[in-house]
């Protein structure tokens, strides 16, 4: 199932569901990178609140999204990583060092507001 992407002002908000397949992750990447140009978006929030696990493929896809959209002029912030998901990611050896994260949607919006105002 494709990840729904909502437009809110200058931001795109993608809400990932629990059963995200590899194909869905790649499609999300392509959709976001395209929509940054289409809607002249300056910020992207990827909401993982509903995602019940993150494996290495999903993590790599999200990092790629953050890097590609940065090159297109938009900041990406990943929000809503659940405690168990964070624990499993650390055990697995996945780091998100180069990806901005925030607790939830509200914090993510605040982060983007501060980022885009500085630019």
């Amino acid at each position: 199932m494709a990840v729904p992407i909502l437009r809110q002002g200058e931001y795109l908000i993608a809400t990932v569901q629990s059963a995200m397949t590899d194909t869905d992750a790649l499609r999300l990447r392509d959709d976001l990178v395209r929509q940054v140009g289409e809607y002249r978006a300056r910020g992207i929030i990827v909401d993982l609140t509903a995602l019940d696990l993150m494996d290495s493929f999903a993590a790599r896809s999200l990092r790629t999204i953050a890097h590609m959209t940065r090159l297109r002029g938009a900041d990406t912030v990943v929000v809503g990583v659940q405690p168990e998901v964070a624990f499993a990611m650390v055990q697995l050896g996945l780091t998100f060092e180069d990806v901005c994260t925030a607790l939830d949607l509200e914090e993510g919006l605040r982060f983007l507001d501060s980022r885009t105002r500085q630019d």
Partner: protein
Amino acid sequence: MPRAGPLRVSIAADVDIVTARQEGRNLAEQMGCSPTDSTLVATAISEIARNIMNHAGRGEIAISAVSIDGRTAIEVVATDAGPGISDIERAMQDGYSTGPGLGLGLPGASRLMDHFEVRSKVGVGTTVVMRKWCPP
């Protein structure tokens, strides 16, 4: 706990990876594992199932409740008839990969589980057996 036959999920497409990890989580939860342990099991299944996809193209994941020395564990057996692994020691090192992945699959999954073993024969296939203890 009565030992039921293993739940088998054949792996041939990326949706099967999702099915396998959801089945693993369901069984772990039914067996009384904490949400954290259930997530670790599901994540390990996701990594191993993807290894099957990337290296063998297809295979199978069997998930079951087992009893060992009076303790209960959830056991995941992943089998494929792919090319096999010539150097298992090397494949268990972080960052070593012959496929498109990050090279975290086998070593990463082993860190998520309590027991992890790989049996492989070049040209014949690979079997991964991993277990996580469940609360009594």
